[in-house]
Structures are given as C-alpha cells and as structure tokens.
C-alpha cells in the first residue's frame, strides 16, 4: 500500500450551544489554509490540493467536513430527524471561526468552492480580522432560484444529484474526475444538498454590501470556471468589480468544481495566488 501523507482526525466542537463531532483532514506545514467543500459535498473534494507538495511545503492545508457532511455526523443532542436540515449563514460563519480558534490557527487563508466561494465573501465582510485572505471559487453576490424541491424529494434519488453536478463540470475535464464529482454528490444524506442551498441560494445575498469589504484588512481573490452555469463567470466578475482591491480570474476550461474536476489545470490559476499570499501576508 502506498500511503498518502494526509491525516484525518475527529474532534468535538460546540457552536451555538450544540456539540458536534466533526471530522477533518490535514497535510503540510506553514500558513494555515482552511478549505471549504461545496454544498452537499465533503472534504474529499480537496484531496488533490492536499496531496500537492508544492502547496503543502508552504501551507498547512486543512479540510473539514461540516456537521451532517462526510464523516461529521449530526449532533447527538438534537432530534434532527424532526426538523428540516437548513444551513444558515450565521451557523456557517460561526462554525468556521470556532473551528479555526479551536485549532489555534493564526489568521488562516480561507479557500472555498461554490457555497464555500460564497462564504469567502461573507467572511471577508463579517470577519476580516480572522483571516488574512480569502480565495473564492465560483463566488457570486447572490445566486437566487437554485433552492429547488427536486434536490430533496422522496421520489427522486441521489442519481439526480449525480447527473446534475456532473453537468456542472467542463466537458474537457478528465472524465474520471468529472464522475468523481457526481459520486461524492450522490453520497450525501437526502436533505443535505438542498439544506445547504438554503445558504447558497437564499441567505447568501450580499446585494449592496460587497462595496464594504476592506481589502486592506483581508485580501480577496475570486476565480470562476468558464463552464459554471450556477455562479457564472460574469456573476463572479461583477462581484469582484464591486470590491475595491479584489482580484478576479476566469478559469478557462473549468467548471463549477475546479479543484476536483481538473486540479492540474486549476493549479495553474491557484498557485500564483498562493505564492502571492506567502509573500505579502
């Protein structure tokens, strides 16, 4: 067996008075780089980045499964089966900050994709002193209309997510990784993806607020895949244009899941940013 250097750990964390047993993985040494998975996904989406020695030689890369995702179970103290799962913006922000504090991270760099990309903007606005930089992949100011019932319907199986998210990748990305996107999506518990979309498509609405982000306190980098039909390159570019000092890059030949579907190509866009952060922050 050829072992990878990624290690996984479990921990218990209390947010809003509720204790959660959570799972996270990490690799590398240096500036902490906190990686946020997409709606309905989990930390496995960061496996290529976490196994990249060019990154892990400079960064301590950490990917956490949010509660209810991946290996992080629902809390034991809540009768979660009696209430609809919905990820709220307040919980999402507070969880990430608490997680960072619990690990004693010193102003980590935050990188997130899709709802993680949206969260990059929320963190930049609400907690600029907690993070030194945010890198938002597939970010937008507001993405209404995607919180649709079919993502959590008793008659529709996880195959819908499998097919739907496969489409969100670029046709030129390697098929094995495009299929992996769908595989991970088909594995989340039935209500999780739609519950996360409550944040992604409803609560994350920074209309009229992006101008308040202060990039002298926190650096903001936004990137969007050419094929992203959920948060389109134009939506991401517009968001960046409203933040003085933010940097925007369109990633040609990539879709909504750049770090999963074609990490080799994604890295060509990401590495200059990671290099820049090591020099100036």
């Amino acid at each position, binding site marked *: 067996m050829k072992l990878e250097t990624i290690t996984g750990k479990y921990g218990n964390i209390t947010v809003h008075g509720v204790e959660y047993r959570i799972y996270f993985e990490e690799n590398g040494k240096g500036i902490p780089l906190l990686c946020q998975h997409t709606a309905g996904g989990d930390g496995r989406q960061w496996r290529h980045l976490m196994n990249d020695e060019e990154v892990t030689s400079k960064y301590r890369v950490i990917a956490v499964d949010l509660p209810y995702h991946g290996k992080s179970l629902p809390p034991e103290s809540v009768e979660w089966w009696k209430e609809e799962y919905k990820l709220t913006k307040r919980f999402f922000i507070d969880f990430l900050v608490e997680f960072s504090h619990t690990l004693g991270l010193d102003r980590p760099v935050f990188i997130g994709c899709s709802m993680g990309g949206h969260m990059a903007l929320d963190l930049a606005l609400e907690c600029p002193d907690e993070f030194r930089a945010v890198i938002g992949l597939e970010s937008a100011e507001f993405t209404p209309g995607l919180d649709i019932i079919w993502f959590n319907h008793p008659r529709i199986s996880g195959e819908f997510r499998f097919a739907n998210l496969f489409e969100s990748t670029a*046709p030129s990305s390697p098929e094995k990784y495009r299929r992996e996107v769908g595989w991970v999506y088909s594995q989340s518990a039935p209500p999780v993806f739609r519950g996360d979309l409550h944040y992604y498509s409803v609560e994350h609405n920074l209309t009229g607020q992006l101008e308040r982000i202060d990039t002298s306190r926190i650096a903001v980098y936004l990137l969007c895949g050419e094929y*992203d*039909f959920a948060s389109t390159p134009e939506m991401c570019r517009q968001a960046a244009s409203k933040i003085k000092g933010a940097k925007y890059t369109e990633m040609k030949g990539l879709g909504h899941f750049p770090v999963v579907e074609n990490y080799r190509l994604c890295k060509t866009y990401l590495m200059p940013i990671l290099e820049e952060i090591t020099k100036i922050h």
Partner: protein
Amino acid sequence: MRVVFLDSSKVEHLRNAINNDAEFKLAARYMSEDILLEVNDSRCIVKVRDSVVTEIKLDPPSEDHWSFSIKATADSWDKLLQSSPPPFYTGLNAGMIRGNLQIIGNMEVAFAYLWAMNRMLDIMKQLQNK
C-alpha cells in the same frame, strides 16, 4: 444540419446505439416513459419500455401522450449536440437553468431520469458528429 433524432435515415441507428449502451441501460433501469423532443416546430417521441428504446416516432400527432418534453431552438440543439458543447450547454439541467431549453411536463419523471436523458444526449452527440 438536421439533428440526428429527427433524421429518418438515422433514427434506427440511434435507437440501436442507445440500446447497446451500457451506461444508458443502468441509468434507465425501470424506465417506461415517452419523451417528446422538440426542435422549433419539428418533433419526435422517444418511447422507452422497460429501459429499452422501442421506437423513435417522427412527427407524432399532437394527441399522442408523453411524460415530459425537451424543447429548444435549432441553434440550442446544435450547441447541445456539439462533441464539446459551449458553456451552459453541457447537459439538460445546465441548458434549462440558463434558459437555453425547456423541460415541460412531469418534472418528477424528468429529474428521476436526468442521468439517462443526459446519457441519451451523449449518444446523440456521438452520432451527430460522426
């Protein structure tokens, strides 16, 4: 160029290609539905029974029943059927969300079989670009 599923000289070949596709067989398990495909004013119905495409019926009468329809302009179908489609044409949901096609009818069935329909689209692409 006429889309492959409306070309009378190619629909039988298309039907066989779909039925011989391993992925379609998996994705279309337990499927017995009629799907209307529309290109501007031209139409066909793809009839699936027990996961097998039994007929691609060209110019069906308007009273024929169907579960759901996929409707797009000739220009949109042209993009959907390119071997490497442009952004927002990478599948049926992508096209629908960006307003490049419409799915009408029983959405529950349409989404339950999105994988099968996208696979059918892939096979159409292969034949369209041969």
